[in-house]
């Protein structure tokens, strides 16, 4: 259960990180607390949208989904259910793949690094890792 709880806390942090970037994109926040200026370069680039949708919005929806999934999976009654573990692993795995794509864009196309994006990359990777650990736990408990 501690893995799912950890995933829930991490996803909640991810919700706030992506909400912060989305509020910036919507013009509700003037300056990103970034330090390098790279955040604004990335957020104002055409790559800050994917198929016409703000990447920050995609991130927000993804983290909210992971948060709900991890919260439901953290209930004592769901402790030995494998479905939450599988869904967490699959969705966070997709998130890691998407993050790799975005990080490659930052490094090789935009030539700027957004610290908040790096923070999000760390969060989604950690969620993926704890999801895999949780999957292993449930499988061994069921076996």
């Amino acid at each position, binding site marked *: 259960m501690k893995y799912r709880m950890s995933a829930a806390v991490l996803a909640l942090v991810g919700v*706030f990180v992506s909400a912060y970037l989305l509020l910036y994109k919507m013009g509700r926040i*003037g*300056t990103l607390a970034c330090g390098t200026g790279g955040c604004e370069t990335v957020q104002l680039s055409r790559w800050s949208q994917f198929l016409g949708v703000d990447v920050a919005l995609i991130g927000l929806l993804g983290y909210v989904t992971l948060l709900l999934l991890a919260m439901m999976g953290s209930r004592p009654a769901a402790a030995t259910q494998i479905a939450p573990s599988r869904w967490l692993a699959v969705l966070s795995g997709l998130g890691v793949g998407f993050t790799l794509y975005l990080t490659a864009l930052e490094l090789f196309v935009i030539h700027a690094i957004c610290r908040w994006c790096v923070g999000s990359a760390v969060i989604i990777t950690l969620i993926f890792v704890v999801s895999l650990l949780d999957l292993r736990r449930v499988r061994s408990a069921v076996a």
Partner: protein
Amino acid sequence: MAAAPSGMKGFYVTIGVVAAAGVAFLGWQLSRRNSVSIPANVSVLPADTAGFHGYMLGTDSAPVVVTEYADYECPYCADFDIVTFPDVKARLIEAGKVRWRYRDFPLSMHKYSRLAAHAAACADDQGKYWQMHSLLYQGQPDWASGGAAGQFRKYAGIVGLDLGAYDQCMESAKYAGRLQASYDEAVALGVNSTPTFLIGGRLYPNLSFDQFQRVVDSIIAAKPAS
């Protein structure tokens, strides 16, 4: 493998603490940006207006000077800028008939007019006035309902301003005096609505392109041949 109630309690406390911290952080960020404001009714110093007569477009040898008194938050001004002004620019200003002079007349009834005019002035510092001017009018529905300062900064990024210099310009309100001078000039002339145009010593309310053309052509026709 059911979790102990104390484990669940600790989990919910952690979630609550993280949620509270996140909400507090976002709230602080939102309020921080809204605190940027440009004061009205400031004393105008000679340095505020030295060498500045408005934002100009067109050749200085044009036979007619049109001065526009406008407010970035006024919907009629936005309509004029988006619908009519492109024709005026292409067929009168670029044709050498008109020299355009834009003056700010930020109405007190509009919450963000002065801030918008100041954002444009800061863009002028970096040679991007007209790009910013167009974005401000095009984006009026997005910022007039709130979050204006953040939107203006976003436009500053889009037009390619140095955002550090832009922030410094906005936070120092360095053009508050210039804006006040522009406002005072309009009041002294009797301007009481926006947009208003000063052409050949007469004030005109909002004009269509055809009306502009007639006024401009009549002034040119009345001028003695040189």
